[in-house]
């Protein structure tokens, strides 16, 4: 199982803040997961943005971060705190 979270503008665009996906061993890294989500349709194109950020198990990571069953993955736009 993969626990997915979407924050801020992405959550608004997707109309979804979190979901669970069945574990799929063919998803080797966060980018594989992102591409699978992009295949869901045009609404998901926000995940194709160049400055997309992502986190695995609550730590910022790159798109090449490996995935494992049980991971929590978050996608979000560039952070704007401070």
């Amino acid at each position, binding site marked *: 199982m993969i626990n997915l*979270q979407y*924050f*801020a*503008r992405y959550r*608004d665009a997707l109309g979804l803040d979190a979901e669970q996906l069945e574990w799929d061993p063919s998803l080797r890294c966060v980018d594989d997961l992102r591409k699978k989500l992009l295949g869901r349709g045009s609404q998901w194109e926000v995940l194709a943005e160049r*400055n997309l950020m992502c*986190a695995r198990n*609550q*730590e*910022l990571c790159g798109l090449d971060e490996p995935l494992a069953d049980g991971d929590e993955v*978050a996608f*979000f*736009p*560039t*952070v*704007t*705190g*401070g």
Partner: protein
Amino acid sequence: MSIRVQEAPFDPGAELNALHAANLGIGAVAGFVGYVRDFNDGRDVAGMFLEHAPGMTEKALAKIADEAAQRWPLLRLEILHRVGPLDPGEPIVFVGAASAHRDAAFDACRFVMDYLKTRAPFWKKETTPEGSRWVEGRTSDQSAAVRWRG
């Protein structure tokens, strides 16, 4: 080392004074306060909502604080960030660094802010006369963080 993420308003002066309290080895305290402005990107701003990623936020801030403590001889370090609804003029963020001498305090304070801006999961949504809008990240923030690499 103190990390706080809270909805409640805070008094930056009180935070700054507390950093020095009861430690006579501290010779320098540097503080930064970020405020909500009433104007941004060509529009009046009537208010703001600060979203964050609970759990991830605290971890990200602790990691930044740890890195600052490894780079400089700090005696105290505080990061305080508000979330939820904010009005123009209210403080959003406070970073304070205490050390024996000024260089470490100044540099650590700036380092923490530069990293917080690019690595801590906060997002601003502004309320303007034309409706609300998510604030977009700035490339100048990215280049400000890059200077600390190496």
